[in-house]
């Protein structure tokens, strides 16, 4: 019998050797982990782990995932059908796969619109009671009486939230992409996959901003309900009223609506809102034909060839947007840090 040609002990020896090797690698990894832990705030690991476990098993997260999944699949189905019937016409434009995410037949908004709309809610929902919740449950003083750094609580909750959202969005993006593949039947190119990934990462960054804002609010307000309400207020303000407000302000400053200056100021005012930053970034990422953001003069457009940008150039175009969102996140985080570090914690 062929199997018996190789004595059993030889197999066991090989296994033992592999085991030994794995062990050494494990040892190295452990040492490396210890070293990294040395410069992280004490207690970060356990807090992040617990918060992550809490989040992914929470009803809150479940509801949001369900909401995103249902809307995502609905919009995907509608656009998928539309693209399928028009694939022949769209062929010359290329990037059919990305259209699954951005195109709409008018009946339902595209996937990106849904994600863009729900992302702030996701961030706010995961963070609005980060600190105030611990305080209301009277666990905060017990937690802070352990030998941990205070910032470990903030950072741990933030990292856990971003991790949970990242995992969820990645899974959702892949699922929608896969379903789209089945529906449309056009495989994505490497460029398209990269763009998709960049879109997901941008969305994670966007959620991270709202999460940091929510954590800040949870530090500021003692009641979780107040904090949630304030968060939703800010979100609605940026999503619904910022553009109106920007129009008003620009109209008052530069009454000549046709002037370049008017358009420029309007664009910059709009970009103070994270919602605008995100929307522009996503449009640029998922629609390679977008080559310029903001006002463009007719003479600049004359003679320009219709074409698409490579992903590197698209990323370059939205780099300020990404930086803006990151800066917003850092500002929120720094503020909560300052407020929380020296606060007196009473039970």
């Amino acid at each position, binding site marked *: 019998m062929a199997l018996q040609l190789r004595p059993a002990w030889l197999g066991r020896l090989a296994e033992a050797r592999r085991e030994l090797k794995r062990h050494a690698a494990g040892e190295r990894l452990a040492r490396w982990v210890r070293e990294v832990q040395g410069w992280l705030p004490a207690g970060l690991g356990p807090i992040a782990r617990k918060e992550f476990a809490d989040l992914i098993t929470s009803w809150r997260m479940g509801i949001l995932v369900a909401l995103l999944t249902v809307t995502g699949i609905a919009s995907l189905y509608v656009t998928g059908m539309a693209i399928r019937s028009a694939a022949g016409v769209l062929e010359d434009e290329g990037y059919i796969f990305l259209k699954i995410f951005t195109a709409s037949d008018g009946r339902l908004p595209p996937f990106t619109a849904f994600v863009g709309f729900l992302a702030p809610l996701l961030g706010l929902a995961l963070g609005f009671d980060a600190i105030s919740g611990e305080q209301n449950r009277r666990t905060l003083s017990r937690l*802070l*009486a352990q*030998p941990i750094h205070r910032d470990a609580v903030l950072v741990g909750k933030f990292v856990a939230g971003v991790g949970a959202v990242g995992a969820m969005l990645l899974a959702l993006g892949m699922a929608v992409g896969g379903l789209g593949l089945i529906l449309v039947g056009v495989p994505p190119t490497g460029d398209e996959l990269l763009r998709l990934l960049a879109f997901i990462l941008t969305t994670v960054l966007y959620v991270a901003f709202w999460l940091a804002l929510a954590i800040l609010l949870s530090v500021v307000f003692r009641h979780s309900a107040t904090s949630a309400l304030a968060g939703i207020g800010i979100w609605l303000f940026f999503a619904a009223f910022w553009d109106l407000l920007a129009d008003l302000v620009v109209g008052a400053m530069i009454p000549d609506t046709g002037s370049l200056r008017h358009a420029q100021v309007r664009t910059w005012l709009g970009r103070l809102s994270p919602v605008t930053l995100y929307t522009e970034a996503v449009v640029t990422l998922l629609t390679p034909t977008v080559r310029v953001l903001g006002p463009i003069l007719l003479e600049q457009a004359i003679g320009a060839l219709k074409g698409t940008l490579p992903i590197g150039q698209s990323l370059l175009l939205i780099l300020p947007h990404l930086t803006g969102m990151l800066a917003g996140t850092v500002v929120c985080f720094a503020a909560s840090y300052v407020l929380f570090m*020296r606060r*007196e914690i*009473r*039970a």
Partner: protein
Amino acid sequence: MAGEIIRTYDLTKRYGDLTAVDSLNLEIQPGEVFGLLGPNGAGKTTTILMLLGLTEPTAGRAEVCGLDPTREPLAVKRQVGYLPDNVGFYDELTGRQNLRYTAELNGLPREEAERRIEAALEQVGLTAVADRKVATYSRGMRQRLGLADVLLKQPRVAILDEPTLGLDPEAAQEFLVLIRRLSREGGMTVLLSSHLLNQVQAVCDRVGIFVAGRMIACGRIDELAAQVFAGEPLQVEVEVEPASEAVLSAIRQTPGVREAQPAAPGEGPAGRLRLLLDRDVRGEVVRRIVGAGGTVLHLQLRSHNLDEIYRRYFRGGDGDGAAAAAGVARPAG
């Protein structure tokens, strides 16, 4: 002396105009059970927070295990266990999982953690319900879980803020006895705060009485009593048989007896008397009763309990004390 495990030097905390803790000088010896007593709002919790580095003193400093909690909070928190007033747990986790989280935060290796968790649960008597969600726990069970949470760290000092609050008297007494025993067995220093004085007096080696941010008295309970009641007559309860006129006059004529009144009607048998003595002449009283043909059935020197001492301090104190006493219903926060 370098032996103190907790020491404060003119520790002061002000909130705007309000001085919550005023120049506190506290010395606690290792292995001692020290009671921080006073009405709500007297500054007990604030003192505790400063000892743990959870709030910064306005002036003065504290030393816990030889470390400054403001500068080295982590080193202090490694050696000090804290049971906050009205402790909270994660309701959706089991008791054991809650303890496991604490163990992780303290960086205990897994096997060691499991061993200590098991031991702590055993000590507080929660082994049977350890795997039930904390949401199902009663108030007393939560409090005991809080104690397990403290024991798990094997701290040198345990700081317990109002540990008996919300417990029925029996559970409270049981809890305090448990604390006492654990302190004796493990050599752990315990600092506990309370406004329920009579509950605490049985377990504390020494107490400090707080009124309006100041510690107005500190020492062993009998010492405090001697201080407060200096110059006042001793109260003795005695039961004689028969309660005849001869016996009564024999008692009254004993030198040192100031007063002998029958105990209020309805308070026990007819032969029960309450005596006020200028000095301890109990032996002489008994001899005279026997000499007059009576029998002593019962004799007891009424000791002063903390409640009395405490009330006395209030009466003797300034207006602030009375104001603080009136504010007993105020929440500690």
